[in-house]
């Protein structure tokens, strides 16, 4: 029996695409070699946020006196890990339930394109079956990128998976790479008492963020005892002794760092190997599957979404790509009455959930200037914010960037308490093509952190009340 849609991989790209396909009337199946929910639910977004929440609770206990509470406590590392796994399991079971509810067939095993409209699935028992489909959506995701000097051995040189389930808490850790994953783990382990050193190749941490964000985060991390080495590169790691000895090339020469373990967090590599792309002539580009704005590959009937295609490697991007891809297939088959809008990659928010949190969308100050905009910039320090003061979280700021000519909201860059919950406002307002007037006329509740977005906009236009 042939399916209308078969999805290869059940991450937030794949399982969401499968649900939308089923909703639109397609007979749908999903193929997964490991656990439903992909990296995101099992080894990414969700379990890390559970770990970070434990760290946050522990921080509150450490600082309880500041809140008028007398408390002492210790983090039970294995209980923290266990809780995180429990949360991941619960969410993965949730996907299982959703598949059933939406009448999507789940086929466990490793899938490989066999021929046009055919995927071969090899189960754990070694047996193979052929699944037939009119439309195939590749959503195989990604994995840790590996540097030649930093081969992951799973014990002393680890990737994110191992970092999430270490048997004991290391006394010291070197984190290589300071993107979202690197700083989240760095913060988590440091909060629990591990001595953490972050080594970053670029001249600042979280290098995709606005420069002022990098500076503020570094300041806060250092205050919390995290060591940061920028413009630095791990050239080799000696794992022969008790721990590790990492040679680091810095601007000032070479240094050797000792630690219990090294975490490699240097980016994502797409899973494009061994799934039959070459055999069927599906084009790739720079290690990712090449697609058009509706996620069609060069081979008719084969689509690709999520971390295995270009674009930000983020769960919310993968999900939206899945929805657009499927709605467009449905539109083509007259099962859906309008063509979906293509995703605007310039309006995708990015969040980092360490403390302080980082959230941003749109252009950084430098990007806006480089693009030739004359800009208005407003920055509001959270030290002046009532809610931040009441919450005891005065660190950070909110920075907004507007085009001086037409008043377009070009970007928002926030660092501080709860800012990840506040970035959607900018995304929606940009989507609706706001100018600063409407933001100021929209009443933000007091006292919240979110009202400070409005304050930042006021700063940009010289109308600031509170600074």
């Amino acid at each position, binding site marked *: 029996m042939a399916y209308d849609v078969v999805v290869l991989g059940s991450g937030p790209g794949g399982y969401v695409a499968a649900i939308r396909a089923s909703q639109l009337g397609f007979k749908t199946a999903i193929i997964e070699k490991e656990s439903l929910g992909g990296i995101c639910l099992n080894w990414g977004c969700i379990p890390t946020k559970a770990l970070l929440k434990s760290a946050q609770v522990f921080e509150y206990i450490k600082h309880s006196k500041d809140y008028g509470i007398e408390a002492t406590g210790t983090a039970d590392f294995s209980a923290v890990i266990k809780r995180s796994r429990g949360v991941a399991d619960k969410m993965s079971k949730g996907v299982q339930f959703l598949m059933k509810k939406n009448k999507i067939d789940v086929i466990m095993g490793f899938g490989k394109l066999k021929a046009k409209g055919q995927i071969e699935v090899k189960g754990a028992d070694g047996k193979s079956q052929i699944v037939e489909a009119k439309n195939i959506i590749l959503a195989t995701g990604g994995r840790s990128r590996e540097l030649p000097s930093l081969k992951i051995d799973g014990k002393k040189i680890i990737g994110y998976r191992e970092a999430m389930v270490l048997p004991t808490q290391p006394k010291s850790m070197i984190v290589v790479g300071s993107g979202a994953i690197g700083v989240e783990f760095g913060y988590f382990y440091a909060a629990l008492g591990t001595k953490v050193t972050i080594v970053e190749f670029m001249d600042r941490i979280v290098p995709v963020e606005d420069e002022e964000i990098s500076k503020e985060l570094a300041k806060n991390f250092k205050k919390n005892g995290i060591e940061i080495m920028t413009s630095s590169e791990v050239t080799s790691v000696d794992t022969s002794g008790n721990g590790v000895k990492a040679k680091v090339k810095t601007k000032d020469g070479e240094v050797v760092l000792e630690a219990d373990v090294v975490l490699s967090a240097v980016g994502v590599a797409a899973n494009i190997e061994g799934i039959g792309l070459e055999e069927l002539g599906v084009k790739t580009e720079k290690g990712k599957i090449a697609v058009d704005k509706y996620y069609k590959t060069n081979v008719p009937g084969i689509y690709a979404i999520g971390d295995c295609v270009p674009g930000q490697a983020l769960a919310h991007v993968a999900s939206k790509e899945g929805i657009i891809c499927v709605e467009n297939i449905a539109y083509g088959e007259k099962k859906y009455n*309008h*063509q979906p809008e293509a995703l605007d990659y310039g309006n995708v928010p990015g969040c980092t959930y360490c403390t302080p949190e980082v959230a941003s969308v749109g252009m950084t100050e430098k990007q806006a200037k480089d693009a030739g905009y004359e800009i208005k910039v407003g920055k509001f320090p959270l030290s002046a914010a009532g809610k931040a003061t009441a919450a005891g979280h005065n660190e950070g700021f909110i920075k907004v960037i507007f085009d001086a000519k*037409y008043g377009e909201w070009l970007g928002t860059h926030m660092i501080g308490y709860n800012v990840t919950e506040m970035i959607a406002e900018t995304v929606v307002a940009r989507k609706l*093509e*706001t100018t600063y*007037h409407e933001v100021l006329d929209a009443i933000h509740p007091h006292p919240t952190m979110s009202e400070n977005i409005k304050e930042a906009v006021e700063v940009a236009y010289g109308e600031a009340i509170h600074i």
Partner: protein
Amino acid sequence: AAQNGARFFSPLVLNIATSEGVSLNELETLPGSGTDGRVTKKDILQYVANRKAGKPAVATATATVTAPPVHRQE
């Protein structure tokens, strides 16, 4: 946004129109590429660029007037 015509224009589109001397009447005739034919920032910027280049008003590159104003999936 305050306007008298039948169509909705985003604040940014109106701002660009004002800055570039595009009248409301002109705006009303612009094809829109957004959901339900809404005129987007891109559409009006294209229109202004075309006008400066002396091209006809209708040549908005991506202006595929798509969906009639119906809701999806109800």
